[in-house]
Structure formats: structure tokens, C-alpha cells
């Protein structure tokens, strides 16, 4: 193994060697290394296989834009992560990494057969190949594509890590800590603004970390950097955050940032969160994200060892690693010349600088000659030699568009630079416009929609002096926008490496361009040829080209490939780039874990689970639960050996024969109070309220403006000016919001106020012939005898000594009471009733029994027997409409032609011919089972149960013209292919006269 580490270079901690493994082999690096820099220090360039062709791939970049060096990392049991960028992942003792997309090994991969068949895998390959025969899609094509799709192995175990979240507020958020970001942070910090400075890597400095030869204010760049960091850290109003990626820029300066907390640690504190999602609300944002270097497009440009020149410079200066000892530099921008000089000065023998430009500043040429570096101007690159590592670069002179004779340059690395692309991803998230700069051939930030400032290379500037100056200006602008003022700051920069360059389409070649494997998107294996083919096949917008070729998709999000792809597509179309467009950058900027998005929402905190004050008792007594809105409600209480059917049958029987006890605490409760309460109720609900006496209760029906049923519930009049409104469990918040909406926007003149009391009260329902006998001894301050307290009434009293609002109402058809007591007493009262109820064989019942008992009486459940298209008349409860009322919400809609038309779906009962058959809820209904398919559906089953008291099944259904079909026989197709026949009836199946309410 050769050591490519250069003495005296880099910022890694030479005193702290770190061992880790890659594909089972142990490698040594230093604290501060990334997986990529440590592997390169060991001479390893081959780090992965490409997605489609399984071509050998090496590291291309030194940052988060890396398309190739994606590895699997293992941080212990359940902590496997695919597609970790080797250029970002820091090494620590014991880190285990592996290459991806290869079998049996990275160096010998059978999947590379795809590479030999590449002519078959051209753009649009999937669309063309997997079209016919249609029957192959489900069984052959889709499984095949799914198997081949995706890079890396998906984790199979539950992620044991914790993920944290935090909100953060600041005056100025500076994203990116290169020279412009630091200057902005210093300026705003000195002005006293609350500043947050973030950088995605482990260390701040950005370009400065790769350019140590520059001096600022008379100090070497790194000394100046250390001073700037110390000054920022000394300001209490500045917060610096490393390993923190701003992933998305949302409305009104809300920025999502993901901070990696432990992925770089060998020894993770027990229970520590792995990552934290910061939700930042910044008054001003400074984007100082710099520019992304563009690869060059030529045959064999993906061979391991071919990488960006700027990356090589970073590996050398930041990590002390030479990426090759005999590199060739291939460029169209001055910046790569400096990379060549740094490499040469560090001991590499630079084989040549090949520049596609015919004219390059003389000073650069002199500097190259002084180092003995041969120069080839006006040249193109036409091929690379080598498979697992580049061995030579084939170059040719280009003159007047003609490609001349080849020349082979032996090398162990090719350092390319096809220009620089301002990083505009976050700006693009804001929907700010991008303006085309025809001279720079780049998109630059244009019209801004947020309070944002873009500084430095991110808006096309070049050189450290320019970046510092621009960052200072952005920081001062931000402070000014906040109403403050910032002191002027100037920087003296010496040895700055300014420069310029050109960008281009795929490089010209003397060979067949159709055979060139000249990659535009390394990650998705898209070549220049693919893009030209897409254009030939009719894709005229870059958005179509992108989808046809997959260029710039997945984690790349166009970082490396967008501008090269666009330039080539524009050339193929014979248009300027802005006429072909630019694809949209979408959040997140870099791949983000699901854990970071989920945050604390896992396990018991995945979602709110609301529980009633009596929930504990139900749990202790073996309840099965069902979710209702955010609540969990006791569904039924199975005894030993009982299934749901048996338990519910028993609960129904016990309630109808003696007494059942039910936790109704989840029902929504709203206090409607004020001198105009009656008027408000008259306007909101269909029913008339004026004549409802104090102490009486009434079923209330709530419609939407469209006349369809929204909610219902029993409403008690507590005083002239006070109503106790109940709503459905799921409707509680919605009904209160609807009422507040009308009150605040339509009737602000009404003197009435609404307060949610849902959780103030625990509500216990007692139902059955013995309900009063059980309750009476507990009641003080009220006479609850049948005469004194008729059905549908309410009284304030004490029950078991607790202050109570006691209703006599029934959702079962039996004698029923609902006892509201302050929530903290709910369970105590329940247990007192439970103990006393033993003499009546009291039975606790859950929501299923409640549903059966109400269905036997034909009472509807809003949202089950209605679906937002059902009027009161459709549901058979037109009696709940106050016919003499001038108005109520939804009244006018009830006269609409389609509402009064014949043939609407109406709620009817269904009794199956075979009484033992219980229909499936949701099943469709047809009038004639022998009609040709597709049959006409005339309705569906809304509720269906076994009725123990009737000894048969019952059902309710919404059926077209249902009220006119009484005694007709309808047919319900079953899942197994048969049909069930049922007779249309009314919906009151049990005790239609209501005799059972009259228990003395």
C-alpha cells in the first residue's frame, strides 16, 4: 500500500491515527479525515460501481456534491446506512464501510455486463423495452425494474437511533462558512445582530481551507481564519454550527437544517440523538454557498482517478493527501492551473496542463513553465485508458473546429475543471427567479421573494478578496434591513487567485461521438449521447430531457450534471440555454435521513393518542381498543374465550336486559353562552331552540352551507343564555371552529361566546332498564324519577358528591343517563357505579356495542351513515328541521333542484333473506344481479351488525330512491362472487314505538 500523505500539509491531526475498514480491509487515516481522504491517502480511488452499467467509479469531488463515492456504513446493530457520501463521512476508530452495487466484488463485478450492452440501455430504455406485451408488466417487468432500481441496500432493521428537533430564531442566518459567509457573519455579529453561521462540513472556512497560500490582512489565510473564528466565538450574539446542512428554504425565511451530532463519533454517549432537525426562522438570510465545479464531458471521463481539480486541491491542502503522483490537469478555467501548481509544489510530477482554450493568461503559463509543467493549449480530451484506475489520457489539438492527431499522456490522475456553477439550490427553493448570464454562461440569482442576500461565488464572483468584500456587503445589507447599521470592513488580500474560464458542451473528438461513453451524470449513468438522443426523439424542454434520461435526478439534484446537460441539450436544439430552461431544484439539498424528518415522532410519540380519565380502568379490565379521531376508545371488553362477536352480543344483551356502563367522555362539548345564545343556536342548527325550556335537551343537527349533514349531538339548555352542546367525538374541534368562523366573520354582532369543555367533563353513560335504580342513590339535589325528569332533560346536581350535569338521554333506546362530572373524578365515579352495579350484573360496553344498540334503533352515526352528500331528508331525519325558522346554516341549499329531486340516495334498512348473513359494510348494492356487467350500483351498505336482541342481522344502506323501494328485494354482491338478497325496510328495527324508554 502506498502512502499518498504529504508531510506538512493538511489539517488532519497527525497525532491521532484512526483505523477503519472498507470492504473488510483495514485502513489507517487520521482524526479529521473523511472516508474519501483516508482511502485516497492509501492510494484507493475505486470506491463504487455505477448505478446502471456497474462501471468502476472513483471519488470525483471533496464535498456533498459527490456522485460516485457512495458507501454503506455500519455504526453497530441496526445502524446500517446506504449511500453515505465518503467525502462527508468522517472516520473514527472502528468505523465499518463497504462499497455498493457490486457482485461478487468491487474489482470484479458481474453486473458490469450491462456496460458491454450499453447500446441497449440508452435514454428512454425503460419506456421502450418494457412496453409489450402488456401482461408482462405485473409479473416480469415491474419486479425486474424494482430489483435493479435503487443504489445500495435498504436497511432491514428498525432504526434504533434517536432524532431530535429544535426551533431556532435569529436575525441573520448565514449559510456557508467560506470567506463570504465569514465576512457576513463578522459584519452582522459586530453590529450586534443575533447571528447563526452554519456549515455542512466539520470545520469552517470553506475555500480558505483549500487555499492556504492566500494572505488576508497580512496574515496567512489559516491564521486569519483562526482569528475570525475566535472573534465570532467571543460574541455572545453569534452561534456557529458545523456538520449542519441547510436542506430546504421554505416560506417566510423558514429554513430546515439537519445537524449531524454523532455520526463522527466512535464513542457515542448513551441515548444521544444522532441528528437534529433545526427549524430556523431567520429575519434575514445570507446564502454564501459558493460554487460547484463542473466536470468535463469526454469519453472515459468516469474512470477512477479522473476527478475535479478543485477537489484534488482540497484533498491536498485540507487533508494533506496527493490524489496522484503524476496527474494531468484538464481544464477550461484558470482555477485548475493553481491546483496543478499546488500539486507540483507538494511533490507531484504534473504530466501536463491541457487547456481547451487557445489563450490563457501569460502569468499562468509562466508559473507553469517555472515548475517545468508542459502546457497544451487548444486541446481536447478524447479518451482515457485504464479500467479500475486511469493510466493515460488521450488528447488531441483542436484547430478551427478540426480535431488533430492524438497524443497519449501517461498519468495516475486526471484533474478536470469545466468551469464553476454558482450553487443556487436554496435560492431556487424560494422560487426566486434565476437570470441567465450569457457571458459567464451561468444562471445567477435574480428577483428575490424572501429577505435573502446572496454573496460571493454563489452569485458568480471569483477570488477571495471579492468574496470577502461581497460577504461584508451582504452582512451589512442584512443589518440595514433589520433597521441597524454595520461598520465598514475592508480586507487586504495578497496572493489572491483570481481567474476566469469558459464552459462547454461535450469535448470535440476525432472518434465516433455515438460510441463515446462521455458521462454527464455519473450517478445516473447518463451520457452526452443519451441527451442528444432524447432531443432527437422529441424532448424539447429540459424538464422532458431530464425525465427521459434521468439526468440530474436522485441525490445529485443537478449539482454536477445540470449545466453540462443543459448546454448539450441546448446545442442539440440549436438554442440558447435559457430557451431550453432549467430544471427545478427541490429540497432537500442533500440526502436527508427519514429519522431527521420524523424527529421525536416514533414509538409512543408517533402520534398523539388521547385517552379519557376512565381509559386506565378499561385497560385494567381487558378492553380492546379502536382509534376514533385522535382518541383511543374501548371497543369491547372480551371475557375469557370470547371473540369480538361473542363479547359484543353479551354486552348488548346485558345492557338491554339490565344495565350497561359506557365511557362517553370523548364526545365533544361546547359551552354556548351569552344573551344571544338562543339566536346563535337557531342560526347554526336546523332545529328550533327558542321554545326549548331550561332543563330540557334536544337532538341537534348541524349542516354545512351546502345543506349536507356535518355533525349532530344532544344539546341541553342549562339557562336561558347557556347551552351545553355535545358533538360527535371526531367533530369536536371542527364544529367549534365552524361556530367560531360564523361568529367572527358573519355575526360579530351576536353577544355569545364559545368555550370547549370536552375535557373539563368525564362522561359516563348508563343505559338499560335498571339504569335509574343504579343511579338514584348517588344523586343529590335533583329528583330523577320518571315524572320529575323526563326523557331528554338535564339537571345540575351532585352524583356521588361530585358536581354534575346529569342528562336523561338515550342513544340505545333504553332508559339512559349521561353523567358529566369534573374530569379528575371520572374514574372514581365509574368505580362507585361499577361496585353498586354488581347487584344488577352491570356490564361495561365499548364502542362496538354502542354502535349495534343505536343501529337497532335506526340512529345514524355522522360519517358512517352519512358521507358529506346526505341531507336531513335523505337520512330520514327531516323532522329535525325547524320548518318555521327563517334561516339556519344550509337552509337555502335544501331547496336546490338537485336536493329536492327524485331518486336521491336515501337511508333505508336492509334485512337479509337469510337472517344469519351479516352484510359487509361498504358493500355495493344492485337492483338486478343478472344484468350485464358492468352493473349499475344503486347504493352501498353503511352499517351492518348482528343484532342479539332480534336474533338476526340488520343493516342500513344509502340507496337511490330508497324510500320508494320499501319491501323491494335488492342484491348485494359478495367478495366470494355470490350475491346476498335483502329486503328494504325502515331503519327502526327494535322497539319502534319507544316503549322501552318509559321505565318507571
Amino acid at each position, binding site marked *: 500500500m502506498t502512502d499518498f500523505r504529504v508531510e506538512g500539509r493538511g489539517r488532519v491531526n497527525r497525532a491521532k491515527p484512526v483505523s477503519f475498514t472498507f470492504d473488510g480491509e483495514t485502513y489507517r487515516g487520521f482524526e479529521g479525515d473523511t472516508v474519501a481522504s483516508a482511502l485516497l491517502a492509501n492510494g484507493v480511488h475505486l470506491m463504487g460501481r455505477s448505478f446502471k452499467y456497474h462501471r468502476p467509479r472513483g471519488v470525483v469531488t471533496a464535498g456533498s456534491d459527490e456522485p460516485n463515492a457512495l458507501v454503506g456504513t455500519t455504526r453497530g446493530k441496526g445502524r446500517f446506512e446506504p449511500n453515505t457520501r465518503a467525502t462527508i463521512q468522517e472516520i473514527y476508530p472502528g468505523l465499518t464501510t463497504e462499497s455498493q452495487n457490486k457482485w461478487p466484488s468491487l474489482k470484479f463485478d458481474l453486473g458490469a455486463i450491462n456496460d458491454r450492452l450499453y447500446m441497449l440501455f440508452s435514454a428512454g430504455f425503460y419506456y421502450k423495452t418494457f412496453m409489450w406485451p402488456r401482461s408482462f408488466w405485473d409479473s416480469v417487468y415491474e419486479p425486474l425494474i424494482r430489483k435493479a432500481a435503487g443504489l445500495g441496500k435498504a436497511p432491514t432493521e428498525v432504526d434504533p437511533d434517536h432524532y431530535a428537533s429544535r426551533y431556532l*430564531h435569529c436575525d441573520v442566518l448565514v449559510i456557508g462558512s467560506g470567506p463570504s459567509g465569514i465576512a457576513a457573519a463578522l459584519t452582522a455579529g459586530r453590529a450586534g445582530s443575533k447571528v447563526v453561521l452554519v456549515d455542512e462540513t466539520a470545520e469552517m472556512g470553506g475555500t480558505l481551507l483549500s487555499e492556504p497560500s492566500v494572505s488576508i490582512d497580512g496574515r496567512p489565510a489559516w491564521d486569519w481564519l483562526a482569528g475570525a473564528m475566535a472573534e465570532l466565538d467571543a460574541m455572545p450574539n453569534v452561534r456557529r454550527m458545523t456538520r449542519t446542512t441547510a436542506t430546504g428554504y421554505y416560506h417566510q425565511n423558514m429554513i430546515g437544517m439537519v445537524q449531524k451530532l454523532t455520526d463522527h463519533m466512535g464513542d457515542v454517549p448513551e441515548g444521544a440523538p444522532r441528528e437534529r432537525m433545526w427549524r430556523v426562522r431567520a429575519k434575514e438570510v445570507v446564502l454564501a454557498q459558493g460554487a460547484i465545479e463542473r466536470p468535463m464531458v469526454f469519453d472515459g471521463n468516469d474512470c477512477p482517478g479522473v476527478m475535479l481539480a478543485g477537489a484534488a486541491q482540497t484533498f491536498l491542502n485540507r487533508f494533506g493527501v496527493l490524489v496522484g503522483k503524476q496527474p494531468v490537469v484538464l481544464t477550461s478555467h484558470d482555477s485548475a492551473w493553481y491546483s496543478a501548481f499546488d500539486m507540483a509544489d507538494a511533490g507531484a510530477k504534473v504530466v501536463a496542463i491541457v487547456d481547451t482554450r487557445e489563450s490563457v493568461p501569460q502569468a499562468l503559463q509562466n508559473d507553469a513553465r517555472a515548475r517545468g509543467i508542459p502546457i497544451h493549449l487548444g486541446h481536447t480530451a478524447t479518451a482515457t485508458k485504464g479500467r479500475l484506475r486511469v493510466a493515460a489520457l488521450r488528447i488531441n489539438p483542436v484547430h478551427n473546429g478540426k480535431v488533430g492527431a492524438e497524443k497519449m499522456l501517461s498519468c495516475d490522475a486526471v484533474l478536470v475543471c469545466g468551469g464553476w456553477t454558482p450553487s443556487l439550490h436554496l435560492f431556487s427553493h424560494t422560487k426566486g427567479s434565476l437570470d441567465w448570464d450569457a457571458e459567464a454562461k451561468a444562471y445567477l440569482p435574480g428577483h428575490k421573494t424572501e429577505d435573502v442576500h446572496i454573496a460571493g461565488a454563489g452569485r458568480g464572483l471569483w477570488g477571495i478578496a471579492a468574496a470577502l468584500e461581497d460577504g461584508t456587503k451582504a452582512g451589512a445589507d442584512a443589518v440595514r434591513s433589520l433597521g441597524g447599521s454595520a461598520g465598514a470592513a475592508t480586507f487586504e488580500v495578497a496572493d489572491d487567485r483570481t481567474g476566469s474560464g469558459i464552459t462547454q458542451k461535450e469535448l470535440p473528438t476525432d472518434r465516433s461521438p455515438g460510441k463515446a461513453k462521455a458521462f454527464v451524470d455519473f450517478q445516473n449513468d447518463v451520457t452526452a449521447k443519451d441527451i442528444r438522443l432524447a432531443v432527437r426523439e422529441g424532448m424539447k424542454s429540459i424538464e422532458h430531457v431530464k425525465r427521459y434520461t434521468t439526468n440530474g435526478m436522485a441525490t445529485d439534484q443537478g449539482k454536477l450534471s445540470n449545466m453540462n446537460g443543459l448546454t448539450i441539450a441546448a446545442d442539440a436544439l440549436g438554442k440558447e440555454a435559457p430557451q431550453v430552461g432549467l430544471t427545478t431544484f427541490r429540497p432537500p439539498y442533500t440526502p436527508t435521513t427519514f429519522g431527521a424528518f420524523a424527529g421525536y415522532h416514533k414509538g409512543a410519540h408517533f402520534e398523539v393518542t388521547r385517552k379519557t380519565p376512565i381509559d386506565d380502568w378499561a385497560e385494567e379490565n381487558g378492553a380492546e381498543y379502536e382509534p376514533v379521531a385522535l382518541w383511543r376508545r374501548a371497543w369491547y371488553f372480551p371475557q375469557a374465550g370470547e371473540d369480538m362477536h361473542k363479547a359484543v352480543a353479551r354486552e348488548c344483551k346485558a345492557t338491554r336486559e339490565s344495565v350497561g356502563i359506557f365511557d362517553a367522555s370523548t364526545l365533544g362539548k361546547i359551552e354556548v353562552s351569552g344573551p344571544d345564545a338562543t339566536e346563535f343556536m337557531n342560526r347554526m342548527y336546523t332545529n328550533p331552540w327558542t321554545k326549548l325550556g331550561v332543563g330540557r335537551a334536544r337532538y341537534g343537527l348541524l349542516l354545512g352551507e351546502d345543506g349536507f349533514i356535518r355533525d349532530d349531538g344532544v344539546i341541553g339548555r342549562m339557562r336561558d343564555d347557556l347551552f351545553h352542546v355535545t358533538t360527535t367525538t371526531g367533530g369536536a374541534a371542527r364544529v367549534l371552529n365552524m361556530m367560531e368562523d360564523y361568529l367572527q366573520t358573519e355575526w360579530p354582532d351576536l353577544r355569545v361566546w364559545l*368555550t370547549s369543555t370536552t375535557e*373539563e367533563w368525564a362522561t359516563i353513560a348508563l343505559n338499560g332498564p335498571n339504569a335509574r335504580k343504579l343511579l338514584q342513590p348517588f344523586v343529590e339535589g335533583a329528583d330523577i324519577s320518571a315524572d320529575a325528569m323526563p326523557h331528554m332533560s338535564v339537571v345540575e346536581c351532585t352524583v356521588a358528591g361530585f358536581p354534575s350535569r346529569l342528562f336523561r338521554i338515550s342513544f340505545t333506546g333504553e332508559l339512559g343517563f349521561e353523567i358529566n362530572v369534573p374530569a379528575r373524578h371520572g374514574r372514581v365515579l365509574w368505580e362507585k357505579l361499577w361496585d353498586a352495579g354488581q347487584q344488577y350484573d352491570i356490564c361495561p360496553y365499548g364502542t362496538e356495542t354502542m354502535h349495534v344498540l343505536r343501529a337497532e334503533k335506526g340512529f345514524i352515526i355522522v360519517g358512517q351513515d352519512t358521507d358529506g352528500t346526505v341531507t336531513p331528508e335523505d337520512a330520514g331525519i327531516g323532522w329535525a328541521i325547524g320548518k318555521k325558522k327563517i334561516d339556519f346554516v344550509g337552509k337555502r341549499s335544501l331547496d336546490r333542484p338537485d336536493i329536492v329531486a327524485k331518486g336521491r340516495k336515501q337511508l333505508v334498512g336492509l334485512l337479509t333473506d337469510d337472517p344469519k348473513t351479516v352484510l359487509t359494510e361498504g358493500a355495493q348494492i344492485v337492483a338486478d344481479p343478472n344484468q350485464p356487467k358492468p352493473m349499475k350500483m344503486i347504493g352501498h351498505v353503511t352499517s351492518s351488525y348482528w343484532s342479539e336482541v332480534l336474533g338476526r342481522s340488520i343493516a342500513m344502506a344509502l340507496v337511490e330512491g330508497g324510500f320508494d323501494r320499501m319491501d323491494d328485494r335488492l342484491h348485494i354482491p359478495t367478495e366470494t362472487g355470490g350475491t346476498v338478497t335483502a329486503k328494504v325496510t325502515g331503519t327502526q328495527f327494535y322497539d319502534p314505538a319507544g316503549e322501552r324508554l318509559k321505565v318507571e
Partner: protein
Amino acid sequence: MNAPVTSFDAVSVAVLPPVARFNLRIAPADLAVASRIFGLTLPAKIGEGARNGDRAAYCIGPDEWLLHAAEVDQSAIMSGFDTARAETPHSITVLSDREIIIGITGPAAIDLLSTCCPLDLSRMAVGHAKRTVFDYAQVVLIRDGDDAFRLEVWRSFFPHVHGLLEIGVRELAIGL
């Protein structure tokens, strides 16, 4: 209720004993009447609070006040408002059982609340109250001191909110 306390150096979370709690709705013009009945000058501006002994009042809406008092005074306060209702229309509702109160104290109190509360709490004045959210739950947040908050949350949301606070306390103790 016993007060389970989760405490580390930086911040502690405690369940506080219940109080008599009322929701008062009244026209701002009639505020003096309510102040007289309640025995405390009610604050006129949204967010502001007033406190005297065990009586406290927080303005949390244009015509909405959250009132706290000793539990033994609950019925007397209701009677006082009852007497005034004919003359001065208003709505007063007992909510002593609707919410549970959590106390959050310590130098990292704001950090802890910032795990799930989107407000910039550093700008909230001591003695003020805000209706806001904590994760998915609506809460009222009262600031009693630089490092001291009370959070009132509906009873059924309490386990969710309290559990998240406990996770947050452990996270802050680890210090990452």
C-alpha cells in the same frame, strides 16, 4: 396529584397541583366589572398577565382571559360573576379539570420548550402568557421568570406533551 419531577441540572419538569381555572369572555369595555368581581385588575393587552397572591389573569384573546385562583374560591368567584351577568353580559366557564399544569424551570427551560414550540420564547416577557402549540397539542404557556415557565395542556394531550418534555430533558442532559 403527586408531582413527579424529572430533573437535571439544566432544566427540570414537574407536574404542578391543580388550580381553579376559568375562561372569561367579556367585552373589553366591561373589563372593569370583571376586575372588580375577580379582585384583580385584568390586563388589557393580549399576552399580558396580572398576578396577586393566588389570583392571576392572562389576556389570551381580544375578549378572552384565562383566570387562576385557589380551588376553594371557585364557587365564590362563579357566584360573583353570576350576580353581574344580567347587567354585564359575559361568559365564564370553569375549566379547572380541562388542563394539567407542567412547570419547566432551569437555565435550559427555553431550549427544552424550543424542541416542540415554534415561538421565539426569548422575546416573551416575564409574567406574560401565550396560547401556542407544543408539537401537536394546543397549550397555554406562561412565563414566570427568566428560567421558569408553566405550560397548561388539555388533559388527554398531557401524556404526549409530558413524554416529549422528558425526552427533551434527557437530551439536554447529554448535552449534544
